[in-house]
Protein backbone atom coordinates (compact mmCIF):
# COMPACT_ATOMS: atom_id res chain seq x y z
CA UNK A 1 0.00 0.00 0.00
CA UNK A 2 2.44 2.66 1.13
CA UNK A 3 5.45 1.08 -0.58
CA UNK A 4 4.35 2.11 -4.10
CA UNK A 5 6.12 5.41 -4.86
CA UNK A 6 3.43 6.51 -7.36
CA UNK A 7 0.64 6.41 -4.84
CA UNK A 8 -0.59 9.61 -3.30
CA UNK A 9 -1.49 9.82 0.36
CA UNK A 10 -4.20 9.31 1.67
CA UNK A 11 -6.42 7.76 -1.02
CA UNK A 12 -4.06 5.11 -2.32
CA UNK A 13 -4.65 6.22 -5.91
CA UNK A 14 -1.71 7.08 -8.10
CA UNK A 15 -1.45 10.45 -9.80
CA UNK A 16 -3.16 9.50 -13.08
CA UNK A 17 -6.02 7.80 -11.27
CA UNK A 18 -6.48 10.77 -8.95
CA UNK A 19 -6.52 13.16 -11.90
CA UNK A 20 -9.18 11.05 -13.61
CA UNK A 21 -11.44 11.10 -10.54
CA UNK A 22 -10.89 14.85 -10.37
CA UNK A 23 -11.81 15.26 -14.05
CA UNK A 24 -15.23 13.68 -13.40
CA UNK A 25 -15.79 16.18 -10.59
CA UNK A 26 -14.83 19.11 -12.82
CA UNK A 27 -16.97 17.89 -15.74
CA UNK A 28 -19.95 17.37 -13.45
CA UNK A 29 -19.60 20.86 -11.99
CA UNK A 30 -19.45 22.41 -15.46
CA UNK A 31 -22.47 20.49 -16.77
CA UNK A 32 -24.61 21.18 -13.69
CA UNK A 33 -23.50 24.84 -13.78
CA UNK A 34 -24.60 25.31 -17.39
CA UNK A 35 -27.89 23.48 -16.74
CA UNK A 36 -28.61 25.71 -13.73
CA UNK A 37 -27.82 28.81 -15.79
CA UNK A 38 -30.23 27.80 -18.59
CA UNK A 39 -32.95 26.90 -16.08
CA UNK A 40 -32.61 30.30 -14.37
CA UNK A 41 -32.80 32.11 -17.70
CA UNK A 42 -35.99 30.26 -18.63
CA UNK A 43 -37.60 30.96 -15.26
CA UNK A 44 -36.65 34.62 -15.63
CA UNK A 45 -38.45 34.67 -18.98
CA UNK A 46 -41.71 33.26 -17.54
CA UNK A 47 -41.75 35.00 -14.14
CA UNK A 48 -39.19 37.83 -14.09
CA UNK A 49 -37.70 38.80 -10.76
CA UNK A 50 -35.69 41.90 -9.74
CA UNK A 51 -37.98 44.29 -11.52
Amino acid at each position, binding site marked *: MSNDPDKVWPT*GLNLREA*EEVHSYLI*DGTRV*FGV*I*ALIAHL*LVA*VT*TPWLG
Partner: protein
Amino acid sequence: MFDYKRFALGRIASFGTRYMPFADVASEEVPLSRLLRLALFQVTVGMALVLMAGTLNRVMIVELKVPASLVAVMLALPLVFAPFRALIGFRSDTFRSALGLRRLPYIWKGTMLQFGGFAIMPFALLVLSGYGEAVDAPRWIGLSAAALSFLLVGAGVHMVQTVGLALATDLVAEADQPRVVGLMYVMLLVGMIVSAFAYGALLETYTPGRLIQVIQGSAVLTVVVNGIAMWKQEARNRSRATAPVQAFSFLDSWARLAGRTGMIRLLAVIGLGTAGFGMADVLLEPFGGQVLAMTVAQTTRLTVVLALGSLLGFGLASRWLGRGGRAMDAVCLGAVIGIPAFGLVLASALILSAPLLVAATLLAGFGAGLFGHGTLTATMRAAPREQIGLSLGAWGAVQATAAGLAIATGGVIRDLVLAAPAGGTTSASPYVPVFALEGGLLLLAVLVALPLRRGDPAAAFGPARAGAADERGTDCGLAAPRP
Protein backbone atom coordinates in the same frame (compact mmCIF):
# COMPACT_ATOMS: atom_id res chain seq x y z
CA MET B 1 4.85 0.95 20.74
CA PHE B 2 1.56 1.41 18.99
CA ASP B 3 2.15 2.29 15.30
CA TYR B 4 -0.20 5.22 14.79
CA LYS B 5 0.77 5.83 11.18
CA ARG B 6 0.18 2.22 10.10
CA PHE B 7 -3.15 2.16 11.98
CA ALA B 8 -4.35 5.40 10.39
CA LEU B 9 -3.29 4.35 6.89
CA GLY B 10 -5.03 1.02 7.29
CA ARG B 11 -8.26 2.65 8.40
CA ILE B 12 -8.19 5.20 5.59
CA ALA B 13 -7.40 2.56 2.97
CA SER B 14 -10.30 0.34 4.03
CA PHE B 15 -12.57 3.37 4.27
CA GLY B 16 -11.62 4.37 0.73
CA THR B 17 -12.46 1.06 -0.90
CA ARG B 18 -15.71 0.71 0.97
CA TYR B 19 -17.01 4.08 -0.17
CA MET B 20 -15.74 4.11 -3.74
CA PRO B 21 -18.27 3.65 -6.53
CA PHE B 22 -16.39 0.82 -8.24
CA ALA B 23 -16.00 -2.79 -7.23
CA ASP B 24 -12.56 -3.84 -6.13
CA VAL B 25 -12.56 -7.47 -7.11
CA ALA B 26 -14.27 -9.02 -10.10
CA SER B 27 -16.07 -12.02 -8.72
CA GLU B 28 -16.83 -14.99 -10.91
CA GLU B 29 -20.40 -15.36 -9.61
CA VAL B 30 -22.51 -12.23 -9.75
CA PRO B 31 -25.43 -12.68 -7.35
CA LEU B 32 -28.96 -12.03 -8.58
CA SER B 33 -29.43 -9.17 -6.13
CA ARG B 34 -26.58 -7.29 -7.81
CA LEU B 35 -28.00 -7.88 -11.29
CA LEU B 36 -31.42 -6.71 -10.07
CA ARG B 37 -29.79 -3.56 -8.75
CA LEU B 38 -28.02 -2.99 -12.08
CA ALA B 39 -31.31 -3.47 -13.94
CA LEU B 40 -32.65 -0.38 -12.12
CA PHE B 41 -31.18 1.77 -14.91
CA GLN B 42 -33.87 0.30 -17.17
CA VAL B 43 -36.52 1.59 -14.73
CA THR B 44 -35.34 5.18 -15.23
CA VAL B 45 -35.16 4.61 -18.99
CA GLY B 46 -38.77 3.40 -18.94
CA MET B 47 -39.71 6.38 -16.80
CA ALA B 48 -38.19 8.81 -19.28
CA LEU B 49 -39.90 7.09 -22.23
CA VAL B 50 -43.33 7.19 -20.58
CA LEU B 51 -42.91 10.78 -19.46
CA MET B 52 -41.98 11.98 -22.94
CA ALA B 53 -44.08 9.84 -25.26
CA GLY B 54 -47.11 9.43 -23.00
CA THR B 55 -47.57 12.06 -20.33
CA LEU B 56 -45.96 15.14 -21.87
CA ASN B 57 -47.47 14.30 -25.24
CA ARG B 58 -50.88 14.80 -23.68
CA VAL B 59 -49.98 17.68 -21.35
CA MET B 60 -48.39 19.69 -24.16
CA ILE B 61 -51.38 19.30 -26.48
CA VAL B 62 -54.27 19.49 -23.99
CA GLU B 63 -53.06 21.69 -21.12
CA LEU B 64 -50.31 23.77 -22.73
CA LYS B 65 -52.10 24.16 -26.11
CA VAL B 66 -48.96 23.55 -28.16
CA PRO B 67 -49.77 22.60 -31.79
CA ALA B 68 -49.86 18.81 -32.25
CA SER B 69 -47.43 18.85 -35.19
CA LEU B 70 -44.85 20.77 -33.13
CA VAL B 71 -45.26 18.26 -30.28
CA ALA B 72 -44.71 15.37 -32.71
CA VAL B 73 -41.49 16.98 -34.00
CA MET B 74 -40.22 17.60 -30.45
CA LEU B 75 -40.93 14.00 -29.40
CA ALA B 76 -39.21 12.67 -32.52
CA LEU B 77 -36.03 14.68 -31.84
CA PRO B 78 -34.35 12.07 -29.57
CA LEU B 79 -34.54 9.64 -32.52
CA VAL B 80 -31.84 11.74 -34.18
CA PHE B 81 -29.43 10.30 -31.63
CA ALA B 82 -30.39 6.65 -32.12
CA PRO B 83 -27.75 5.90 -34.79
CA PHE B 84 -25.09 7.31 -32.48
CA ARG B 85 -25.69 4.42 -30.08
CA ALA B 86 -23.24 2.33 -32.11
CA LEU B 87 -20.62 5.06 -31.70
CA ILE B 88 -21.28 5.33 -27.95
CA GLY B 89 -20.94 1.57 -27.60
CA PHE B 90 -17.67 1.62 -29.52
CA ARG B 91 -16.31 4.47 -27.42
CA SER B 92 -17.10 2.59 -24.22
CA ASP B 93 -15.39 -0.55 -25.59
CA THR B 94 -12.16 1.35 -26.18
CA PHE B 95 -12.39 3.98 -23.41
CA ARG B 96 -8.99 4.93 -21.98
CA SER B 97 -9.11 5.25 -18.24
CA ALA B 98 -6.37 5.29 -15.64
CA LEU B 99 -8.82 3.60 -13.29
CA GLY B 100 -9.42 0.78 -15.75
CA LEU B 101 -13.11 1.57 -16.04
CA ARG B 102 -14.91 1.67 -19.36
CA ARG B 103 -18.69 1.45 -18.81
CA LEU B 104 -19.19 3.41 -15.59
CA PRO B 105 -18.05 6.83 -16.92
CA TYR B 106 -20.52 6.60 -19.79
CA ILE B 107 -23.46 5.55 -17.61
CA TRP B 108 -22.66 8.50 -15.37
CA LYS B 109 -22.43 10.94 -18.30
CA GLY B 110 -25.70 9.61 -19.71
CA THR B 111 -27.35 10.06 -16.32
CA MET B 112 -26.12 13.65 -16.17
CA LEU B 113 -27.57 14.39 -19.62
CA GLN B 114 -30.89 12.84 -18.60
CA PHE B 115 -30.93 14.88 -15.40
CA GLY B 116 -30.03 18.07 -17.24
CA GLY B 117 -32.78 17.61 -19.79
CA PHE B 118 -35.42 17.01 -17.12
CA ALA B 119 -34.14 19.95 -15.06
CA ILE B 120 -34.82 22.54 -17.77
CA MET B 121 -37.76 20.75 -19.45
CA PRO B 122 -40.69 22.15 -17.38
CA PHE B 123 -39.53 25.77 -17.79
CA ALA B 124 -38.83 25.22 -21.46
CA LEU B 125 -42.37 23.88 -21.92
CA LEU B 126 -43.90 26.78 -19.98
CA VAL B 127 -41.99 29.29 -22.11
CA LEU B 128 -43.00 27.39 -25.25
CA SER B 129 -46.67 27.58 -24.30
CA GLY B 130 -46.42 31.29 -23.49
CA TYR B 131 -47.18 30.99 -19.78
CA GLY B 132 -46.98 34.14 -17.66
CA GLU B 133 -44.64 36.84 -19.00
CA ALA B 134 -43.33 34.44 -21.64
CA VAL B 135 -46.11 35.59 -23.99
CA ASP B 136 -43.94 38.55 -24.94
CA ALA B 137 -40.72 36.53 -25.21
CA PRO B 138 -39.36 35.80 -28.68
CA ARG B 139 -40.59 32.49 -30.07
CA TRP B 140 -37.14 31.01 -30.63
CA ILE B 141 -36.35 30.92 -26.90
CA GLY B 142 -39.15 28.47 -26.11
CA LEU B 143 -38.56 26.41 -29.24
CA SER B 144 -34.82 26.02 -28.81
CA ALA B 145 -35.04 25.41 -25.06
CA ALA B 146 -37.69 22.70 -25.47
CA ALA B 147 -35.75 21.09 -28.31
CA LEU B 148 -32.59 21.16 -26.20
CA SER B 149 -34.30 19.53 -23.22
CA PHE B 150 -35.77 16.71 -25.34
CA LEU B 151 -32.42 16.19 -27.08
CA LEU B 152 -30.60 16.00 -23.74
CA VAL B 153 -33.01 13.44 -22.27
CA GLY B 154 -32.98 11.41 -25.49
CA ALA B 155 -29.20 11.36 -25.72
CA GLY B 156 -28.97 10.41 -22.05
CA VAL B 157 -31.45 7.55 -22.45
CA HIS B 158 -29.60 6.15 -25.47
CA MET B 159 -26.27 6.40 -23.66
CA VAL B 160 -27.42 4.86 -20.38
CA GLN B 161 -29.25 1.99 -22.06
CA THR B 162 -26.49 1.06 -24.52
CA VAL B 163 -23.66 1.13 -22.02
CA GLY B 164 -25.75 -0.33 -19.21
CA LEU B 165 -26.63 -3.36 -21.33
CA ALA B 166 -22.96 -3.72 -22.28
CA LEU B 167 -21.97 -3.66 -18.59
CA ALA B 168 -24.60 -6.30 -17.79
CA THR B 169 -23.20 -8.48 -20.58
CA ASP B 170 -19.66 -7.98 -19.24
CA LEU B 171 -20.71 -9.08 -15.78
CA VAL B 172 -22.27 -12.46 -16.45
CA ALA B 173 -21.10 -15.68 -18.03
CA GLU B 174 -22.31 -16.57 -21.52
CA ALA B 175 -24.77 -19.19 -20.26
CA ASP B 176 -26.53 -16.67 -17.98
CA GLN B 177 -27.01 -13.98 -20.64
CA PRO B 178 -30.59 -14.98 -21.57
CA ARG B 179 -31.65 -14.53 -17.94
CA VAL B 180 -30.05 -11.09 -17.86
CA VAL B 181 -31.78 -10.09 -21.08
CA GLY B 182 -35.11 -11.21 -19.63
CA LEU B 183 -34.43 -9.27 -16.45
CA MET B 184 -33.57 -6.10 -18.39
CA TYR B 185 -36.75 -6.27 -20.48
CA VAL B 186 -38.94 -6.97 -17.45
CA MET B 187 -37.44 -4.05 -15.54
CA LEU B 188 -38.03 -1.75 -18.52
CA LEU B 189 -41.68 -2.82 -18.62
CA VAL B 190 -42.01 -2.47 -14.84
CA GLY B 191 -40.53 1.02 -15.03
CA MET B 192 -42.93 2.01 -17.78
CA ILE B 193 -46.05 0.58 -16.10
CA VAL B 194 -45.31 1.95 -12.61
CA SER B 195 -44.37 5.40 -13.88
CA ALA B 196 -47.41 5.55 -16.19
CA PHE B 197 -49.70 5.03 -13.19
CA ALA B 198 -47.63 7.40 -11.02
CA TYR B 199 -47.62 10.23 -13.58
CA GLY B 200 -51.33 9.74 -14.19
CA ALA B 201 -52.08 10.09 -10.48
CA LEU B 202 -49.66 12.99 -9.91
CA LEU B 203 -50.91 15.07 -12.84
CA GLU B 204 -54.61 14.38 -12.16
CA THR B 205 -55.15 18.04 -11.32
CA TYR B 206 -52.80 19.93 -13.61
CA THR B 207 -51.13 23.14 -12.50
CA PRO B 208 -47.90 24.63 -13.88
CA GLY B 209 -46.36 24.22 -10.42
CA ARG B 210 -47.28 20.55 -10.34
CA LEU B 211 -45.73 20.05 -13.80
CA ILE B 212 -42.44 21.53 -12.55
CA GLN B 213 -42.53 19.35 -9.43
CA VAL B 214 -43.23 16.16 -11.37
CA ILE B 215 -40.59 16.62 -14.08
CA GLN B 216 -37.87 17.85 -11.74
CA GLY B 217 -38.77 15.09 -9.30
CA SER B 218 -38.16 12.65 -12.16
CA ALA B 219 -34.76 14.29 -12.71
CA VAL B 220 -33.70 13.74 -9.10
CA LEU B 221 -35.11 10.21 -9.08
CA THR B 222 -33.13 9.42 -12.25
CA VAL B 223 -29.83 10.41 -10.66
CA VAL B 224 -30.58 8.59 -7.40
CA VAL B 225 -31.82 5.36 -8.99
CA ASN B 226 -29.05 5.25 -11.60
CA GLY B 227 -26.55 5.94 -8.84
CA ILE B 228 -27.86 2.96 -6.88
CA ALA B 229 -27.82 0.88 -10.08
CA MET B 230 -24.19 1.50 -11.00
CA TRP B 231 -22.70 1.55 -7.51
CA LYS B 232 -19.80 -0.91 -7.25
CA GLN B 233 -20.84 -2.77 -10.40
CA GLU B 234 -17.76 -2.47 -12.58
CA ALA B 235 -14.47 -3.89 -11.43
CA ARG B 236 -11.29 -1.89 -11.90
CA ASN B 237 -9.10 -3.58 -14.43
CA ARG B 238 -5.35 -3.12 -14.07
CA SER B 239 -4.44 -4.79 -17.34
CA ARG B 240 -6.91 -2.63 -19.26
CA ALA B 241 -5.65 0.55 -17.61
CA THR B 242 -2.04 -0.12 -18.54
CA ALA B 243 -2.66 -1.73 -21.94
CA PRO B 244 -1.22 0.14 -24.96
CA VAL B 245 -3.61 2.37 -26.87
CA GLN B 246 -5.49 0.47 -29.56
CA ALA B 247 -5.26 1.95 -33.02
CA PHE B 248 -8.77 0.84 -34.03
CA SER B 249 -10.95 3.52 -35.52
CA PHE B 250 -14.72 3.26 -35.35
CA LEU B 251 -14.92 2.25 -39.02
CA ASP B 252 -12.25 -0.46 -38.60
CA SER B 253 -14.07 -1.85 -35.63
CA TRP B 254 -17.41 -1.68 -37.39
CA ALA B 255 -16.02 -3.44 -40.46
CA ARG B 256 -14.71 -6.20 -38.22
CA LEU B 257 -18.10 -6.66 -36.55
CA ALA B 258 -20.06 -6.43 -39.82
CA GLY B 259 -17.71 -8.98 -41.35
CA ARG B 260 -18.86 -11.68 -38.93
CA THR B 261 -21.17 -14.30 -40.37
CA GLY B 262 -24.79 -13.30 -40.15
CA MET B 263 -24.30 -9.97 -38.34
CA ILE B 264 -25.75 -7.71 -41.05
CA ARG B 265 -28.55 -10.21 -41.64
CA LEU B 266 -29.33 -10.22 -37.92
CA LEU B 267 -29.52 -6.41 -37.89
CA ALA B 268 -31.90 -6.53 -40.87
CA VAL B 269 -34.12 -9.01 -39.02
CA ILE B 270 -34.11 -6.74 -35.96
CA GLY B 271 -35.11 -3.72 -38.05
CA LEU B 272 -37.90 -5.48 -39.95
CA GLY B 273 -39.37 -7.28 -36.94
CA THR B 274 -39.19 -4.28 -34.60
CA ALA B 275 -40.92 -2.15 -37.23
CA GLY B 276 -43.58 -4.85 -37.66
CA PHE B 277 -44.35 -5.13 -33.96
CA GLY B 278 -43.77 -1.44 -33.17
CA MET B 279 -46.35 -0.06 -35.58
CA ALA B 280 -49.19 -1.47 -33.46
CA ASP B 281 -48.01 0.18 -30.23
CA VAL B 282 -49.78 3.50 -30.70
CA LEU B 283 -52.58 2.34 -33.02
CA LEU B 284 -54.12 -0.49 -30.98
CA GLU B 285 -55.84 1.87 -28.55
CA PRO B 286 -57.44 4.15 -31.17
CA PHE B 287 -58.36 1.02 -33.18
CA GLY B 288 -60.20 -0.47 -30.20
CA GLY B 289 -61.89 2.84 -29.48
CA GLN B 290 -62.97 3.84 -32.99
CA VAL B 291 -63.67 0.47 -34.60
CA LEU B 292 -64.92 -1.67 -31.72
CA ALA B 293 -66.33 1.26 -29.70
CA MET B 294 -64.40 0.31 -26.57
CA THR B 295 -64.29 2.80 -23.67
CA VAL B 296 -61.09 4.57 -22.56
CA ALA B 297 -60.75 2.20 -19.60
CA GLN B 298 -61.12 -0.79 -21.91
CA THR B 299 -58.53 0.44 -24.42
CA THR B 300 -56.10 1.20 -21.59
CA ARG B 301 -56.55 -2.41 -20.52
CA LEU B 302 -55.63 -3.37 -24.09
CA THR B 303 -52.17 -1.86 -23.53
CA VAL B 304 -51.91 -3.74 -20.24
CA VAL B 305 -52.77 -6.98 -22.07
CA LEU B 306 -50.05 -6.22 -24.64
CA ALA B 307 -47.51 -5.76 -21.82
CA LEU B 308 -48.73 -8.96 -20.15
CA GLY B 309 -48.20 -10.89 -23.39
CA SER B 310 -44.68 -9.47 -23.68
CA LEU B 311 -43.94 -10.55 -20.10
CA LEU B 312 -45.03 -14.12 -20.96
CA GLY B 313 -42.81 -13.99 -24.05
CA PHE B 314 -39.79 -12.77 -22.06
CA GLY B 315 -40.35 -15.46 -19.44
CA LEU B 316 -40.59 -18.28 -21.95
CA ALA B 317 -37.58 -17.03 -23.93
CA SER B 318 -35.48 -16.71 -20.75
CA ARG B 319 -36.19 -20.31 -19.76
CA TRP B 320 -35.80 -21.69 -23.27
CA LEU B 321 -32.58 -19.88 -24.18
CA GLY B 322 -31.18 -20.30 -20.66
CA ARG B 323 -31.40 -24.06 -21.11
CA GLY B 324 -29.37 -23.93 -24.30
CA GLY B 325 -31.97 -23.00 -26.91
CA ARG B 326 -30.81 -21.15 -30.00
CA ALA B 327 -31.62 -17.46 -30.09
CA MET B 328 -32.65 -17.47 -33.76
CA ASP B 329 -35.30 -20.12 -33.02
CA ALA B 330 -36.93 -17.74 -30.55
CA VAL B 331 -36.67 -14.86 -33.05
CA CYS B 332 -38.36 -16.89 -35.80
CA LEU B 333 -41.09 -18.24 -33.51
CA GLY B 334 -41.82 -14.74 -32.22
CA ALA B 335 -42.21 -13.31 -35.72
CA VAL B 336 -44.26 -16.32 -36.88
CA ILE B 337 -46.65 -15.85 -33.94
CA GLY B 338 -46.96 -12.16 -34.78
CA ILE B 339 -48.32 -12.75 -38.31
CA PRO B 340 -51.57 -14.55 -37.31
CA ALA B 341 -51.89 -12.17 -34.36
CA PHE B 342 -52.27 -9.17 -36.67
CA GLY B 343 -54.53 -11.26 -38.91
CA LEU B 344 -56.77 -11.81 -35.88
CA VAL B 345 -56.76 -8.07 -35.18
CA LEU B 346 -58.19 -7.50 -38.67
CA ALA B 347 -60.67 -10.36 -38.20
CA SER B 348 -61.91 -8.76 -34.97
CA ALA B 349 -62.84 -5.67 -37.00
CA LEU B 350 -64.82 -7.82 -39.46
CA ILE B 351 -66.92 -9.63 -36.85
CA LEU B 352 -66.79 -6.74 -34.35
CA SER B 353 -65.61 -8.92 -31.49
CA ALA B 354 -63.76 -7.22 -28.63
CA PRO B 355 -62.71 -10.49 -26.94
CA LEU B 356 -61.03 -11.57 -30.19
CA LEU B 357 -59.09 -8.29 -30.26
CA VAL B 358 -57.94 -8.86 -26.68
CA ALA B 359 -56.78 -12.38 -27.56
CA ALA B 360 -54.98 -11.09 -30.66
CA THR B 361 -53.30 -8.37 -28.58
CA LEU B 362 -52.09 -10.95 -26.06
CA LEU B 363 -50.71 -13.06 -28.90
CA ALA B 364 -48.99 -10.05 -30.51
CA GLY B 365 -47.42 -9.12 -27.17
CA PHE B 366 -46.25 -12.70 -26.67
CA GLY B 367 -44.66 -12.75 -30.14
CA ALA B 368 -43.03 -9.36 -29.57
CA GLY B 369 -41.60 -10.58 -26.25
CA LEU B 370 -40.09 -13.71 -27.81
CA PHE B 371 -38.76 -11.70 -30.75
CA GLY B 372 -37.24 -8.92 -28.64
CA HIS B 373 -35.59 -11.30 -26.21
CA GLY B 374 -34.27 -13.51 -29.03
CA THR B 375 -32.73 -10.64 -30.99
CA LEU B 376 -31.01 -9.09 -27.97
CA THR B 377 -29.62 -12.47 -26.86
CA ALA B 378 -28.46 -13.18 -30.42
CA THR B 379 -26.70 -9.80 -30.53
CA MET B 380 -24.91 -10.51 -27.24
CA ARG B 381 -23.82 -13.94 -28.41
CA ALA B 382 -22.79 -12.77 -31.87
CA ALA B 383 -20.17 -10.28 -30.72
CA PRO B 384 -16.72 -11.01 -29.34
CA ARG B 385 -16.17 -9.83 -25.75
CA GLU B 386 -14.16 -6.77 -26.75
CA GLN B 387 -16.89 -5.58 -29.15
CA ILE B 388 -19.93 -6.04 -26.89
CA GLY B 389 -20.51 -2.30 -26.60
CA LEU B 390 -20.42 -1.71 -30.36
CA SER B 391 -22.65 -4.70 -31.02
CA LEU B 392 -25.27 -3.66 -28.46
CA GLY B 393 -25.02 -0.11 -29.76
CA ALA B 394 -25.84 -1.36 -33.27
CA TRP B 395 -28.77 -3.36 -31.83
CA GLY B 396 -30.08 -0.26 -30.06
CA ALA B 397 -29.56 1.99 -33.07
CA VAL B 398 -31.45 -0.32 -35.44
CA GLN B 399 -34.15 -1.11 -32.90
CA ALA B 400 -34.86 2.48 -31.82
CA THR B 401 -34.76 3.85 -35.37
CA ALA B 402 -37.04 1.09 -36.70
CA ALA B 403 -39.54 1.51 -33.88
CA GLY B 404 -39.62 5.30 -34.29
CA LEU B 405 -40.01 5.17 -38.06
CA ALA B 406 -42.69 2.48 -37.76
CA ILE B 407 -44.78 4.51 -35.32
CA ALA B 408 -44.51 7.58 -37.55
CA THR B 409 -45.31 5.58 -40.72
CA GLY B 410 -48.30 3.89 -39.09
CA GLY B 411 -49.76 7.24 -38.05
CA VAL B 412 -49.12 8.82 -41.45
CA ILE B 413 -50.71 5.89 -43.34
CA ARG B 414 -53.79 6.01 -41.14
CA ASP B 415 -54.16 9.78 -41.57
CA LEU B 416 -53.60 9.59 -45.35
CA VAL B 417 -56.28 6.92 -45.81
CA LEU B 418 -58.59 8.90 -43.53
CA ALA B 419 -58.03 12.06 -45.61
CA ALA B 420 -58.48 10.34 -48.99
CA PRO B 421 -61.93 11.00 -50.50
CA ALA B 422 -62.81 7.32 -50.93
CA GLY B 423 -60.87 6.29 -47.82
CA GLY B 424 -63.02 6.37 -44.73
CA THR B 425 -65.85 4.17 -45.97
CA THR B 426 -65.85 2.17 -42.74
CA SER B 427 -64.25 3.03 -39.42
CA ALA B 428 -61.82 0.11 -39.84
CA SER B 429 -60.52 1.01 -43.31
CA PRO B 430 -57.73 3.41 -42.19
CA TYR B 431 -56.27 0.65 -40.00
CA VAL B 432 -56.42 -2.23 -42.50
CA PRO B 433 -53.33 -1.21 -44.55
CA VAL B 434 -51.32 -0.60 -41.36
CA PHE B 435 -51.99 -4.03 -39.82
CA ALA B 436 -51.51 -5.71 -43.21
CA LEU B 437 -48.16 -3.93 -43.55
CA GLU B 438 -47.17 -5.18 -40.11
CA GLY B 439 -47.90 -8.77 -41.09
CA GLY B 440 -45.90 -8.26 -44.29
CA LEU B 441 -42.89 -6.85 -42.41
CA LEU B 442 -42.92 -9.80 -40.00
CA LEU B 443 -43.13 -12.26 -42.89
CA LEU B 444 -40.11 -10.53 -44.44
CA ALA B 445 -38.28 -10.75 -41.10
CA VAL B 446 -38.90 -14.51 -40.93
CA LEU B 447 -37.67 -14.98 -44.50
CA VAL B 448 -34.47 -13.05 -43.78
CA ALA B 449 -33.97 -14.90 -40.48
CA LEU B 450 -34.46 -18.44 -41.81
CA PRO B 451 -30.97 -18.82 -43.38
CA LEU B 452 -29.48 -17.79 -40.01
CA ARG B 453 -31.37 -20.65 -38.39
CA ARG B 454 -30.56 -23.27 -40.98
CA GLY B 455 -26.88 -22.34 -41.27
CA ASP B 456 -24.09 -23.73 -39.16
CA PRO B 457 -24.71 -23.74 -35.40
CA ALA B 458 -22.13 -21.03 -34.75
CA ALA B 459 -24.04 -18.60 -36.93
CA ALA B 460 -27.32 -19.42 -35.21
CA PHE B 461 -25.95 -17.84 -32.04
CA GLY B 462 -26.18 -20.88 -29.83
CA PRO B 463 -24.66 -20.78 -26.36
CA ALA B 464 -21.22 -21.80 -25.15
CA ARG B 465 -18.73 -20.14 -27.45
CA ALA B 466 -15.25 -21.40 -26.62
CA GLY B 467 -13.01 -19.00 -24.74
CA ALA B 468 -15.81 -16.64 -23.85
CA ALA B 469 -14.85 -16.44 -20.18
CA ASP B 470 -11.17 -15.79 -20.85
CA GLU B 471 -11.35 -12.03 -20.88
CA ARG B 472 -13.28 -11.95 -17.63
CA GLY B 473 -10.63 -14.03 -16.01
CA THR B 474 -8.06 -11.28 -16.50
CA ASP B 475 -10.05 -8.74 -14.50
CA CYS B 476 -8.15 -8.00 -11.34
CA GLY B 477 -8.71 -5.18 -8.94
CA LEU B 478 -6.24 -3.65 -6.54
CA ALA B 479 -6.96 -6.04 -3.72
CA ALA B 480 -6.80 -9.15 -5.87
CA PRO B 481 -3.71 -11.27 -5.36
CA ARG B 482 -1.40 -10.71 -8.28
CA PRO B 483 0.23 -13.70 -9.93
